[in-house]
């Protein structure tokens, strides 16, 4: 199951796709700030969401490998800040495009939900 990232206009999704899609876009966004390893992505999301969102590590790594197989990101082995061998990920050109599209989708989706939730 590759990440179901749809470019262009927002589309309705299955719950599992929604889950994948959400995780994917978070990962892509994180990587857009710079290449890093899986652990780094996990910490970055935790800190940026103010500990509100805690990504399950297993799900994160599944997402990373899935995204790489889909061509949105690519990986390379390197050396971490504390001199340990780690696998670093970064966005590809395609990943950048996907990120833009997904962001738009999310914006539209969130706006739609808020439109319902907010008092008229």
């Amino acid at each position, binding site marked *: 199951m590759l990440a179901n990232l749809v470019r262009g206009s927002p589309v309705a999704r299955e719950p599992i796709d929604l889950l994948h899609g959400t995780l994917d876009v978070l990962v892509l966004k994180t990587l857009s700030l710079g*290449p890093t390893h899986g652990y780094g992505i996990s*910490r970055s999301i935790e800190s940026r969401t103010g500990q509100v969102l805690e990504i399950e*590590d*297993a799900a994160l*790594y*599944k997402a990373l*490998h899935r995204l790489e197989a889909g061509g949105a990101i690519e990986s390379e082995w390197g*050396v971490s800040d504390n001199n*340990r*061998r780690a696998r670093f990920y970064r966005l590809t050109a395609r990943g950048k495009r996907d990120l833009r599209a997904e962001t738009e989708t999310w914006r539209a989706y969130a706006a739609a939900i808020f439109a319902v939730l907010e008092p008229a």
Partner: protein
Amino acid sequence: MPTLRRLIRLPWRNAARIAREIDDEFQFHLDMRAAELHARGIASDEARHEAVRRFGDLGDAREYCRTMDERFERVQQRRSWLADVRYDVQHGLRHMARTPGVTLLLIITLGLGIGATTAMFSVVYRLLINPLPIADGDRMYNLMRSDQRGVSFVPPTRELFTAWRAGVHSLELASTFGKKDVTLSGTPPAEPEGLAAGLIADSMLHLLGAHPELGRSFLADETKPGAPNVTMLSYGLWQRRFGGARDAVGRSLAIDGTQFTIVGVMPRDFAVPFMQGGAPQLWLPEVQSADAFGVQAVGKLRVGYTREQLEREMTDVMSVLAQTAPEYREWKAAAMRPQDYLGTTTRDLLLMLLGAVGIVLLIACANIANILLARATTRRREFTVRAALGAGRARMVRQLLAESTLLAIVGGVAGLLVAWRGLALIVAVRPDGLSDLDAVRLEPSVLLVALGISLLTGLLFGLAPALLAAQEKLGEALKSASRSSSSHASAARFRSSLVVAEVSLSVVLLVGAGLLIQTLVQIQRAPLGFEPAGLSFAPVVLPAARFTTTAARTAAFDQLLRRVRVIPGITHAAWSQGVPPRTGITFGELEIEGRTMSPGDKVSVIGFNSVAPDYFKVLGLSLKAGSVFGSDTSAHPVMINETLAHRYWSGTTAIGARMRMSRTGEWMTIAGVVDDVTIPSTGETSTAMSLQLYAPFDGAFEDGTLVMRSSSNSPGLLALLVREAAAIDPWIRIRSVESVAAAMDRELTGPRFNVALLTAFAGLALLLSAAGLYGVIAYSVSQRAREMGIRLALGAPPRALLRLVVSQGARLTIGGLAIGLAAAAATTRLLADQLYGVSPLDPTVFLGAVVLLGVIALTASTVPALRATRVDPVVTLREE
């Protein structure tokens, strides 16, 4: 941050490696998480456990990631491989474009070799291997009977056919057919026309698995005498006369003056196997008349049975019949395939032509090998350097493979073009005896085989550089001194021997072609025994329904003769059954009264013609002894030719002697001896036709040939004849008048076909060999350019260089000629059956071949030699 650009491609990861990396990745994460927790104050062991717990389902994640990565790796591999192939193809194309001359030469050579072979094999396939491309065509047989020796074949009687159909188990189906000429009367605006009608039994369409395009086929009742007159149109006639109208069924057509109802239309391209001549335009039910001579029968062999079983069962049925009708004992059964009717001479010729074109293909492959080998040595440097830079041997081999495949594909397309046009040309010059060729098609399987051979050659000699390069040390290859390495010399020797082989093969083909050309010349020059100038003939057919007795027919013939004799310009005229070259034969066992025939005397086939007494005068054959048919008709007088008289009655007179052609026939009295008529022919028929027998022409049959000699060229003779015949009866059919000279010329279509094809192949071989020779000499000159430059600089006269190069070419040519002449002398014996008036070892032909090849080879060596002398020594020396 480490740079993440991939500069050098890493080797592919296998499953173990992928698993390992994932484990490392997860381990890193767990360690970091544990460290983080520990930094927050949790004990190390606790921290580890917590990290693992927080991770989630490790096993599941590991599985998932492993699968994902493996799949991704596979996709990457495939994409990379495709990119490599595309690169190889592009590189190959660029390489081909950089040397356009050589590339073009390769493509032309391939095209000629593959194309010629494919065209010729398609011919052989159609005539010898799959002559009946219809449903179950390989199971169709012409059911015939033959004499005990298997020399002559006749169709079975209807009684015999019926017995076969009922009693032969290995026969699944059988049916009969015939052919006759009819005249279609015209409903305006259509004109009356004479055409051939096919006669078929009601079971024929079922046998052939064919269905009418329109309407139905004949019913069993319609084949009985007295049945209503029905007919089926051929597809072509339906289109032509009825415009393809769907309501043609039920309309009527006037055939030979009688109205026939159209009951159906045959499918397109419908034909009955074993039917001679062109496809009939009209089909009629075969009416089983009582006095039928014999019926043409075609049968389908039952699946799982062999031809031998069929013939055995047929013969068994005949022996049963022989119990009540003893004449059947003289015959045995024969199930014939179309190939059997070609005759061994034609079969051998076709196979020889196939061999000849195979030689052309060999020469083409040798040339390709030579070119690629020469290129291999020049590219050695390129490949060695690439190997040094890290290109794997497999990679280079793959690239060469791509180039060879590219070449083979382009060559194959060129070959297809050549084959298509070549086949059309072959069909255009095909002799009358091979009329089946009109339906020949290109055989894709053959094209594939020829392509495969060329591909193999290309691969073999194209891969040489990669293999050579792998063994070279880098330094060696880059040094110019490597020019004189030993592998170089052996490669040059190999190339030279290839050229020598090509030249010798060309000699064989040239000699063969020369012998056939001489044959054609000799045939055309041969004395005929009679004077064909001014002689013409017209086949005439009386309508059977209106002239039913011999007396009536004889009267009609006499009447017509009298009328024709007074046509201005006609000096002599007479009736006969046929006229040279269209005279017939008779077969049986020659017997002479009062004499026991020794084995050497026995003859079973002799030339035969039934002629009116004036015939000899018309042809200009003088009487050598006796009189023309004498006066006593009861004694069955016949005339014989000089050769026959000399063979059996040399020293005595043949006049008054009696002979017959079968033990049960009447004795014929020899009344006179006439001049020989010599019709030059090759192969099996030549000896038979030298013995000639003439019986008196009577009105026993409806057809006869009017033989006329006219003093001038009479245009419109046909119209005059038709008018005279119409005055006697409007249904007398005279369809053509032809001059004997023209008919004799048409007999030459066979030898002309042989000449055309073998000369074309020999020409191709010569062209390719010359190109090969040129290539080898030119290459050797370019390799020795430096040496020549030095010599010129040191003051050698250009003539000396010229001599040097030409002598190299001469050496190769002479070697090829010597081997070729020996080979030709040994193999032209195979052509003996195709020759006339020339021996297989005719010195003129051999000499001619030597001269022709010598001149061309000399030219091929001189051109590069001239180039050598124009070399500017300064330029050459500087290049090093």
